């Protein structure tokens, strides 16, 4: 008994068998009364249908988290990794009390600050100064605390000049900097952070990462959800990997991230969804299929640095007036954005299933594990937000002998390994021996 109470006191967070159940298809779209009435009207028919041995529509029920237990001692910095839809964000939302778990119990000791999105509650009509106070209050800071830290926040944000200007006149970079600056000064004992570091330019990202490191060193308990393996490795003492709502890896951060990259991530050279109603997306675009296809080879062949391959996305377009732009970001295993490519012009085709693809030529990629994030911009289509699918695809490119390597067989460094034409030519030859030496001397 004594030992258990002692260990309990050392725990900041204890989750016991938590699960979160969603009815997919109902969640992304809001319900109208008509839906409920038609659901009720359909219910008896559904019962008849299931009696007739037709499979019921069970695919609409999804457990975003299932039977997850987790203990975090005070002062631990825990990284949470996993593919999109593995339950990372749901876990943070439950811990920060944005939504309630369907089952299980959680005990938290200490004040919780959650940074699931920076700048939540910023109002474009208010000035930067006003928004600092508003956002601070929303994050749970008292006015006295904001007053004390005001100068620090302003200095961190690098927006001092614009402080009394309405935020609608801010550039997106300034907006994000001010948002993070407020959030970074949250001084709760427990901090829940969701990928807020992926903001701003490289310099500011570094600054944010430093601030996170400070939080970790001050003995605060931090939960850090990220796709950036380098950040997880450098910030976290421990990491867990979620897959389909369960913990599949748990241990020291570097070993979890490397096992994740090796065994869990590469399994997704192709994803597809057959049901337009349950596929990820919104009422404008839904994902049918995404895949990596080697050109001129069997689809099952492994990719090498010498293989050209196509990246294909197939989507259902559900609104004829939407103008779509596809943007693909390719990252390597270190979280480096190797390149970004976007479909040119707007895709204005009418509704239906459409395919967007691009080809990565042979002799461009270095070997390693890569992942692709797809952003579908709706160009301000009313009633829907742009879609971002992180880690939609992941694939491995293998090394093979090639002419580029020549006689070198060691590790080939660099984010890319393009086959560039080298020309070596003589600009001026020395005159016949003897004479050349005389010229130089």
């Amino acid at each position, binding site marked *: 008994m004594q030992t258990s109470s002692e260990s309990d006191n050392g725990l900041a967070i204890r989750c016991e068998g938590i699960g979160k159940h969603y009815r997919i298809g109902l969640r992304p779209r*809001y319900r*109208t*009364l008509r839906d409920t009435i038609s659901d009720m009207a359909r219910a008896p028919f559904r019962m008849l249908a299931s009696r007739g041995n037709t499979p019921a529509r069970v695919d609409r029920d999804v457990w975003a988290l299932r039977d997850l237990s987790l203990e975090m001692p*005070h*002062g631990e910095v825990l990284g949470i990794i996993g593919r999109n839809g593995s339950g990372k964000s749901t876990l943070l939302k439950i811990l920060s*009390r944005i939504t*309630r778990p369907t089952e299980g119990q959680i005990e938290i000791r*200490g004040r919780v600050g959650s940074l699931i999105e920076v700048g939540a509650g910023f109002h474009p009509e208010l000035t930067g100064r006003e928004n600092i106070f508003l956002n601070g209050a929303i994050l749970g800071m008292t006015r006295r605390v904001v007053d004390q830290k005001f100068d620090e926040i302003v200095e961190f944000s690098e927006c001092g000049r614009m402080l009394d200007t309405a935020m609608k006149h801010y550039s997106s970079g300034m907006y994000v900097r001010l948002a993070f600056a407020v959030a970074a000064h949250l001084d709760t004992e427990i901090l829940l952070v969701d990928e807020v570091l992926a903001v701003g330019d490289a310099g500011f990202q570094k600054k944010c990462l430093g601030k996170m490191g400070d939080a970790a060193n001050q003995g*605060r308990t931090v939960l850090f959800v990220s796709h950036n393996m380098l950040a997880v490795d450098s910030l976290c003492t421990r990491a867990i990997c979620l897959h389909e709502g369960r913990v599949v890896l748990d241990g020291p951060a570097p070993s979890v991230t490397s096992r994740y990259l090796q065994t869990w991530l590469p399994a997704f050279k192709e994803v597809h969804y057959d049901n337009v109603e349950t596929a990820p997306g919104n009422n404008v675009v839904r994902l049918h299929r995404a895949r990596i296809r080697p050109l001129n080879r069997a689809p099952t062949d492994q990719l090498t640095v010498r293989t050209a391959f196509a990246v294909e996305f197939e989507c259902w377009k559900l609104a004829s007036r939407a103008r779509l732009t596809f943007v693909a970001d390719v990252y390597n295993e270190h979280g480096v954005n190797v390149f970004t490519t976007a479909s040119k012009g707007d895709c204005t085709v009418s509704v239906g299933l459409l395919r967007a693809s691009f080809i990565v030529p042979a002799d461009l990629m270095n070997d390693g594990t890569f992942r692709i994030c797809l952003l579908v911009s709706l160009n301000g289509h009313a009633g829907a937000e742009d879609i971002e699918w992180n880690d939609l695809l992941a694939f491995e490119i293998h090394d093979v002998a090639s002419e580029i390597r020549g006689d070198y067989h060691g590790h080939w460094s660099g984010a890319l390994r393009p086959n560039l034409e080298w020309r070596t030519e003589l600009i001026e030859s020395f005159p016949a021996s003897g004479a050349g030496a005389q010229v130089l001397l």
Partner: protein
Amino acid sequence: MQPTDVAKLTIRATDKSWSLNWGEFWQHRELLYFLTWRDIKVRYKQTVLGVVWAVMQPLAIALALTVFFGRVVHMPSDNLPYPVFAYAGMVLWQFFAQALTESSNSVVANERLISKVYFPRIFVPLSAILASLLDLVVSLLVLALFLAWFHIAPSAPIVLLPFFVLPAVLTSLGAGLWLSALNVKFRDVRYTVNFLMQFWFFATPIAYPTSSVPVRLRLLFSLNPMVGIVDGFRWTLRPEGAFPAQSFTLAVFTATVLLMTGVYYFRRTEDTFADFI
């Protein structure tokens, strides 16, 4: 960090209690202030007339009522001149209608906040109502001008005026809690609210006095809490007749029932707002 002296929080899958967490409200009290302040600050941004709009709306409708009901139909107006009668009713009605409409839409309008940050959700509809109180204060000042213009000297009961605003606040909060929570799941609410407010307007003695309602229907009529509230409010301006005790008591009762059930429904659904919004 001393783990022994920090707050302990337990989250369970089901929370059957429906009592309000007053300690938490106190902890977040500044947020209520800031949300109200934001709503006030933003409401008249980039308008030329600014807060004058708070007076324009009840004034314009009171003018229309005076022309059509006062002059054309010769509607009785108890012991007040018809323009004062109509404007006094409109001031309170405008507050109620605005508070209810704004609070019904408030939860959905603050979708990003609710799906990304935790705070007592009840602050969202509540701050919408508190922000509407500013407009009420401004239009009450104009009511004072009306009284001066029509040579109505305020008598002692005028100090009771705020007590008739309070049940209007409670009614709008009760209905606002119901509608804002329903709006998360059923966006039909947005369209229903406009319709509801028009219907409610006709069911409330703004353009006509309660005395013109047949006596046998009075009790049924007074089930609408706004009946007793508006009558009581007008009574404080010129307390010559009898105080509408029956309808006002009934109003306090129905307003309380509406508020209690509203709090209950809101409490039961707020935990999953983020899943549906």
